[in-house]
């Protein structure tokens, strides 16, 4: 089963993204915890693209596609901005005690994504950045 959503780059559209993902996952009947994990990971990537790659310009958009085959969920978020949003350094790390001491506001999103999903990959397609996430829903 597959489904696609075009997301215009405003943070006000994040609710629409989460609702879209929750509705898609209904057919798989995963646990509430699992649904929340997937919704959160996708929200984080979409928010990053909206804020950092597109400057919250609502004239820009992303394409979100979901594919479910048995229990495997594949997600692609395609960004059409000129920003190359690839993780050059590999899996992000986090020193949470230090993060707390410093009172940092950001830096948690991509760490969460790497811990919530089974696989996270960024690549280029037609000069666009694509984020691919996958997770086994069991």
């Amino acid at each position, binding site marked *: 089963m597959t489904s696609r959503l075009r997301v215009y780059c405003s943070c006000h559209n994040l*609710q629409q993204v989460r609702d879209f993902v929750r509705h898609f996952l209904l057919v798989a009947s995963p646990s509430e915890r699992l649904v929340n994990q997937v919704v959160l990971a996708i929200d984080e990537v979409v*928010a990053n693209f909206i*804020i950092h790659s597109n400057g919250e310009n609502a004239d820009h958009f992303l394409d979100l596609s979901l594919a479910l085959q048995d229990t495997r969920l594949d997600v692609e978020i395609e960004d059409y901005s000129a920003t190359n949003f690839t993780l050059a350094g590999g899996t992000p790390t986090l020193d949470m005690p230090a993060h707390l*001491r410093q009172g940092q506001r950001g830096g*948690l999103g991509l*760490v969460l994504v790497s*811990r919530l999903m089974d696989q996270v990959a960024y690549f280029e397609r037609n000069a666009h950045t694509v984020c691919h996430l996958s997770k086994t829903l069991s």
Partner: protein
Amino acid sequence: MKITSHTTTIVTLALEGELDASSAIKLDAELAQPALLTCDKVLVNFQQLSYISSAGIGMFLSHLPRLQGAGVKVVFFNLPEKILNVFEILGLDALLHLAVTEQDALVR
């Protein structure tokens, strides 16, 4: 979000709905209020919160040093299981004051 005061020294923030990159801005304004620095304790009730992203969590974390530096204890309570799961994934359950109930939060 609602703010209720138990006493002049304990303030409770009751979160509602979904806290994401869009709605976290309102939380920032509430946490920045100078009045919080005069409290002994700020309790944050998650019972009516159905979702939180890193933007919401980060907003809390960004205010903690200032509040704690002023001697304010911040306690999070009534976390729904799926939200507690996120805190656990980040390792925050071991670093923040979490309580199961409001009563527990009051005595922590």
